[in-house]
């Protein structure tokens, strides 16, 4: 069976579902027996989803106006 160190590097590919079946199964065999690695997988996955859930920054209106003013100066309309 693979140990914690051996599966460590593949955990992101595991949660992204990018591993081949055999590699995926090896990790699952390890996880079934290792509570700490299960915690790492759960919290790693949650870390990624939390960062997805942070709302995008909206572009403030005044910043947008200054940007378009700069664009018109640099690339004048004909």
């Amino acid at each position: 069976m693979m140990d914690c160190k051996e599966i460590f590097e593949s955990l992101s590919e595991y949660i992204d579902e990018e591993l081949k079946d055999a590699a995926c199964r090896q990790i699952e065999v390890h996880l079934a027996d290792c509570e700490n690695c299960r915690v790492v997988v759960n919290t790693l996955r949650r870390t990624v989803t939390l960062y997805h859930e942070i709302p995008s920054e909206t572009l403030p209106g005044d910043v947008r106006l200054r940007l378009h003013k700069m664009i018109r100066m640099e690339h004048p309309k004909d």
Partner: protein
Amino acid sequence: MKPDLLNDAELVDLAQEGDGSAMEELVSRYEDKVYNLAVRMVGNREDAEDVLQDTFLNVIRSLGSFRGKSSFSTWLYRITANAALTRLRKRSRKEKSEGEFLDEVYSVKQAAQSGERLNDWSDSPAKRLLSEEAKAMMGEAINELPEKYRTVFVLRDVEGLPASDVAEILDLSVPAVKSRLHRARMFLRNHLSHYYAGEME
């Protein structure tokens, strides 16, 4: 034809011929994405505005040499990432050294194998995990990522681009993108774990 009905490549052609409204349409199409990427990369709105301006200034100045080998958006993200890194290098930096960073990443590996029981906070309510204070902590944690990890993480996990696009934007191999992404995520996972553990005490 109205600029908003044209695709990026058609707008780029027109802008290259000096059509100002085509240029403005390209800017309008991408300004929100560029701004969001800039805020996540530099960690504050003031610097992000400079990055936004620098990015589109560079786009206008180098549009003549854009040959369409990659898509306009890939090219634009590359310019944005470079503008953000230039800005970051100008100010005092909060990021960890590569050595400190890797030590933190691999501390989990040690901890997982030790007898110590790791705390599973993944089922806590989103209301607690994403409190205003927690969101601020998450932004600060990105600021501690060394730049080569930060860029990959922000493009892949914050902007949601596929690993192959991130590889093209940063001129890296896909395996290099995945390895940097994994280390960045592990580092952030540690920060979140420490924060939530302290909060629960």
